[in-house]
């Protein structure tokens, strides 16, 4: 039973582990989740991304068993999950503030789940030791949690959850309490740890960069409904909606009138495959470049614009452009000498992606 997840992973890597079927959650009159459905495959690293109040943490708490769905069902490994009490689910959670037990030391904290499962003492000792080794916290085994730094507490919380070999690990913004540098470090640790143990991770964050860095797939939530579910590359390159395009990275939203395969947004025209009518296009800032450095683009679109602002950020800088027609665009280009006045810019028409509003 304990080795089940890894065997399942090796036999059928794309087998569905978790199915959330038309789940709704209401708190009083407020509907936090609106008939939401999602499937997660064994071994996947999925991120629930969204603003605060989008329902991502609520969904996590429904899966963990801390809340009951108002409607819908949750299944795991072919069995009904949402009717089980939290303590009977083969799911473990890494809490936002770690929730380590203050009266127990690090190894007692990690052993807590194994003791509840009546594991034999020698096995507990071995597995706790392995788990602490995995997160490099062996030397702190006897320390009380409050003596540890945020990053160390984070590692203990991970070990405490993973030592139980859950089928699914839930992580509720586990890095949000850490400072920026430690956060980057923990991101890469988390990613390699997930590959190592092969356990399915469902990760909640409001930080789109973190979601991009870690996930196999990102599920973007908005007001309790799924906006888009796709791989980070897919969701960035082909955002389905204007909201997605804005939330995942920055973008220029262009409203254009399309006629016979030509989109006209006032300042310039470009070819597209959209049907006639009005459409919204997303054009990433980095798709726009200065036209003077002999860039070779397929289907180039040139336009002139004056530079309103130039914001330097190291390797790249952000230009705020204004066309003669008053259209404001942002362009991210490789850093160079300060610019001023009017310049010619260019982008490839294929980089302007149609999005729903």
């Amino acid at each position, binding site marked *: 039973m304990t080795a089940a997840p890894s065997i399942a992973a090796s036999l059928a890597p794309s087998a569905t582990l978790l199915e959330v079927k038309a789940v709704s959650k209401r708190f009083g009159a407020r509907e936090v989740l609106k008939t939401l459905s999602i499937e997660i495959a064994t071994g996947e690293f999925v991120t629930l991304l969204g603003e605060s109040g989008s329902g991502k943490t609520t969904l996590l708490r429904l899966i963990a*068993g801390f809340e009951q769905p108002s409607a819908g069902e949750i299944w795991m490994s072919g069995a009904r999950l949402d009717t089980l009490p939290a303590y009977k689910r083969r799911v473990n959670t890494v*809490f936002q503030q770690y*929730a380590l037990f203050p*009266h127990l030391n690090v190894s007692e904290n990690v052993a*807590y789940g194994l003791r*509840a499962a009546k594991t034999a003492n020698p096995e507990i000792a071995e597995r706790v030791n392995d788990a602490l080794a995995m997160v490099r916290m062996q030397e702190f085994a006897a320390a009380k949690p*409050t003596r540890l730094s945020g990053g160390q507490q984070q590692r203990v919380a991970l070990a405490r959850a993973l030592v*139980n070999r859950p089928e699914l690990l839930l992580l509720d913004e586990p890095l949000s309490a850490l400072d920026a540098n430690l956060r980057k470090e923990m991101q890469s640790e988390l990613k390699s740890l997930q590959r190592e143990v092969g356990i399915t991770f469902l990760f909640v964050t409001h930080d789109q960069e973190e979601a991009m860095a870690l996930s196999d797939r990102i599920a973007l939530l908005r007001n309790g409904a799924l906006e888009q579910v796709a791989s980070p590359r897919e969701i960035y390159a082909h955002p389905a909606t204007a909201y997605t395009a804005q939330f995942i990275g920055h973008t220029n939203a262009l409203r254009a009138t399309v006629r016979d395969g030509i989109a006209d947004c006032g300042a310039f025209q470009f070819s597209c495959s959209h049907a006639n009518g009005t459409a919204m296009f997303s054009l990433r800032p980095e798709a726009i470049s200065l036209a003077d450095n002999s860039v070779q683009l397929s289907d180039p679109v040139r336009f002139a614009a004056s530079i309103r602002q130039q914001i330097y950020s190291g390797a790249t800088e952000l230009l705020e452009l204004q066309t003669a027609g008053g259209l404001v665009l942002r362009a991210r280009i490789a850093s160079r000498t300060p610019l001023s006045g009017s310049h010619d810019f260019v982008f490839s028409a294929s980089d302007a992606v149609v999005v729903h509003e």
Partner: protein
Amino acid sequence: MYSRTYKFLVALPPIVWVTLFLILPYLMMFVHSFWTVRDGVILHHWNVGNYATLFKNPLYVQVLLRTVRIAAAVTLLSVLLGYPLAYFLSFHAGPRKEILYQLIIVPLWVSYLVRGYAWKTILGSDGVLNGFLQYLHITHGPVSALLYSPFAVVLMLTHIYTPFVFLPIYASLEHIPRPLIEASHDLGASSRRTFFRIILPLSLPGLLAGATFAFVLSLGDFLAPLLVGGPSGTMIANLVQSLFGAAYDWPLGAAISVCILMITIALLAFTQRVEKRWLFE
């Protein structure tokens, strides 16, 4: 930062207060306990005769033991009542929490004496309880053992001190971060296991504080045995009172008081040590 004069002036009132109303009286009590009384006059002859009398005379030992037993019973009963009450209020009362909390606190605003007399009318031969028992034909005459017994003292003190036990336990339960309880369930612990492994240990400081309140206050209680105790319910504080009053044997009374003080100090030192072990920094 502050001048010496300022610090001195700020510290003066508490120092005067503690010296005048705490250190000096205790000192006088301590000194008296080594003096003797002959023919109604206190003689300033240093000796330990009072302490010898105390341990030789079975009356004093018997009353002292009874007092400790009553205090222990009150402590146990008020913890058994106060803990579940605090637990329910903290975890399961929902929106009724505030009103229930007030209901528990309200009796504290009623005078101790009034509550004592209330128990007299409840437990007396013509009292509410006897009338009720006879009405139900459970008993056929008034049960006189209800009033003027150690039982009545325990009952009254439990009623009075349960809110004192409830309050610190409730405060410590309220301070337990709720994610810890979710984490325990998440790690496979049932509600029962979560209670014994997480909630109870984390509320232990409050439990100890409450139990200490109940025990120390009951140990020195003098009104409950006077009102509802009768001769069989006499406690050590009543002896002290009669020694200082009618018997006019201040030195012996002082010696008993010193003994009670020692028990109390030993108990407080013990609970403080235990509590320190449960501080989680």
